[in-house]
């Protein structure tokens, strides 16, 4: 029997998370064949097997984190047959009762018809070991506790496992579960936000006729690839307006507000498969509009391709959510902890606008601010939105 162990994939690697098996029990494996994808702290890496054989049993489960050297799978050497005790280690195969149990729980896997793979721990019919405190905390944080790998005695899921899972920005999960994992991460962050942050909301309708006219004029002089989107101008205006409202830009940590030195603008980007990620445009206030536009486009592309840098994922000091063309008039968002504010833009649309006793149709956007009442008050929030509106009336100033 060949033991396939997690190799060290770099001098600084001491553990890895199995993302996916590329083989299944019964498969023949050749030397140098990629049989698993393992996530290290840095990247997902294809792992080859350097021995020839037949996969007998997959021990590690996708999502499982393990130290280097852990036996991940057992392979039969060429010519070796299945040992007797291993064959009897699949007692539940074919039993109707155990099938019912298996299909009833997402944590358990159906035993293959050929009976080649005994179910990984936990055994079929056995209940997952989850501490009561872990269960309670998981419910509070919205973490799917059945999916976690336990670090406690006998593989029990502990409080620490749940809190680690909730804190992880993008939990390692097999591709099929990425959507679920992302949902869990969002659930945990948003539950925490609504639990901890006393939100207040203010909104302002901002006429965009001048801004859009200027944009049209500017874009007419630019090559196709360098044209600006309204979203970039809105982001720039937010970054600029924040200069006078430091209490909206920063983090609330350890019971105190820590203002940020620069504006790292988190941009909520929805993914095509569902879910969203809010990576940051670093130091957005200092960047010219053209550069901001380039970075925005690049960020959207890379977010959807899944190739973000860790700094972009963790640096945001405030988030902007922009519903764009398809959205509603306005959005009142949930702050991403530990940030203290979120700016929302609805759809830019023509609306009736009263001015100087007359009525006209104008393109208007509803801007909203959700902010942490521990740090700022509605009055300051309203002044911030007013400044944002004023800035958007002078788009040529924003271009710089």
């Amino acid at each position, binding site marked *: 029997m060949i033991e396939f162990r997690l190799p060290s994939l770099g001098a600084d690697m001491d553990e890895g998370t199995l993302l996916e098996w590329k083989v299944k029990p019964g498969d023949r494996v050749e030397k140098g064949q990629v049989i698993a994808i393992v996530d290290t702290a840095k990247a997902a890496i294809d792992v080859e097997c350097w021995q020839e054989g037949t996969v007998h049993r997959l021990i590690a489960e996708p999502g499982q984190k393990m130290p280097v050297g852990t036996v991940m799978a057992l392979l039969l050497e060429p010519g070796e047959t299945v040992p007797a005790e291993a064959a009897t280690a699949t007692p539940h195969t074919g039993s109707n009762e155990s099938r019912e149990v298996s299909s009833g729980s997402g944590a358990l896997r159906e035993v293959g018809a050929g009976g080649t793979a005994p179910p990984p721990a936990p055994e079929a019919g056995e209940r997952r070991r989850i*501490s*009561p*405190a*872990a*269960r*309670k905390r998981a419910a509070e944080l919205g973490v799917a506790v059945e999916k976690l790998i336990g670090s*406690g*005695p006998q593989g*029990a899921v*502990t*409080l*620490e496992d749940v809190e680690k899972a909730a804190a992880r920005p993008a939990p390692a999960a097999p591709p099929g579960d990425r959507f679920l994992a992302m949902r869990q991460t969002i659930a945990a962050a948003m539950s925490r936000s609504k639990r901890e942050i006393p939100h207040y909301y203010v909104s302002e309708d901002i006429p965009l006729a001048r801004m859009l006219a200027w944009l049209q004029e500017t874009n007419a002089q630019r090559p196709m690839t360098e044209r600006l989107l309204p979203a970039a101008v809105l982001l720039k205006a937010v970054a600029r307006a924040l200069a006078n409202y430091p209490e909206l830009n920063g983090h609330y940590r350890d019971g105190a507000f820590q203002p940020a030195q620069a504006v790292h603008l988190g941009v909520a980007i929805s993914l095509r498969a569902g879910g969203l990620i809010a990576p940051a445009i670093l130091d957005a206030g200092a960047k010219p509009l053209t550069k901001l536009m380039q970075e925005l486009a690049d960020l959207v592309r890379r977010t959807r391709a899944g190739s973000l840098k860790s700094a972009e994922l963790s640096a945001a000091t405030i988030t902007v959510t922009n519903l764009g063309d398809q959205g509603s008039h306005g959005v009142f968002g949930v702050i991403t902890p530990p940030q203290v504010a979120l700016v929302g833009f609805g759809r830019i649309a023509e609306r009736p606008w009263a001015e100087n006793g007359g009525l006209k149709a104008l393109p208007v956007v509803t801007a909203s601010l959700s902010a942490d009442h521990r740090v700022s008050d509605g009055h300051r929030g309203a002044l911030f939105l007013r400044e944002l509106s004023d800035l958007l009336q002078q788009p040529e100033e924003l271009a710089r």
Partner: protein
Amino acid sequence: MSRKLTYREAMREAMREALQRDPRVILIGEDVGRYGGTYAFSKGFLDEFGPERIRDTPLAELGFVGTGIGAALGGLRPIVEVMTVNFSLLALDQIVNTAALFHHMSGGQFSVPLVIRMATGAGRQLAAQHSHSLEGWYAHIPGIKVLAPATIEDARHMLAPALADPDPVVIFEHAGLFNLEGELPDIDGVDIASAKLRRTGRDVALITYGGCLPKTLAAAEMLAAEGIEAEVLDLRVLRPLDTAGIVATVAKCHRAVVIDENWKSGGFAAEVMARIMENAFYELDAPVARVCAEEVPIPYAKHLEEAALPQAEKIVAAVKEMFA
């Protein structure tokens, strides 16, 4: 001003103060008079307070505990000293069937303001008949209060509220603590209603009382050296048990080990664990563990006696198993 003294001196001071303060207080028991007490708690009391108030009794626990009950009903405030908990079983009928029930059976007309002190516990090579810890049996009985002073401060200050209590109070003094020396803080008194944190931590709650407290504190130090911060809760009062205090420490640490010199089966630790399950189940991150005496008559031989009892190393091992 705090000052240094032994557990023995603290208890002696407490009794002397009680005798001086209230003429109704008397002390009765085997050897408390001429001999000065089996553990020298009452040395010199006979000369100071006279034979009316310091009474030697024959080896007849049932009789002299009954005498104490009668004296209490008659208006005195007796302190009855029973040499060890092993011998108190001879007086069990008086304590359980009479003292504990009198208030109830008389429809509240009579109370028995009696304090019974007895030594408990092992560790001094006195063999099985002098070494057992049966305080859990007494904690089972409604109608009495059960105290277990484990510190100089409690030894000095628990007697006064026990005497002030209108109903019977049994005080268990672990014989292994008598020579313990420590600082007596400058305080007016202690209550006989609550448990007390003797060390704060966050990783695991070590819940104990009496003779196991010093061992548990030593274990907490050993754990701290390995990065595990243990909280130590001294129950102090075994009946009525301070459930809120137990729940608070478990809710903070999420793990608990109960340390108790009783035998494990049906022992007092089991009651503490049951309270945790009833009141703090959802706070637990691991099964509650217990470190108790081995289920044997406590041996005479020193190494066997040590092996039979909870020790700091055993407590450390039980905690580490939780973090394995």
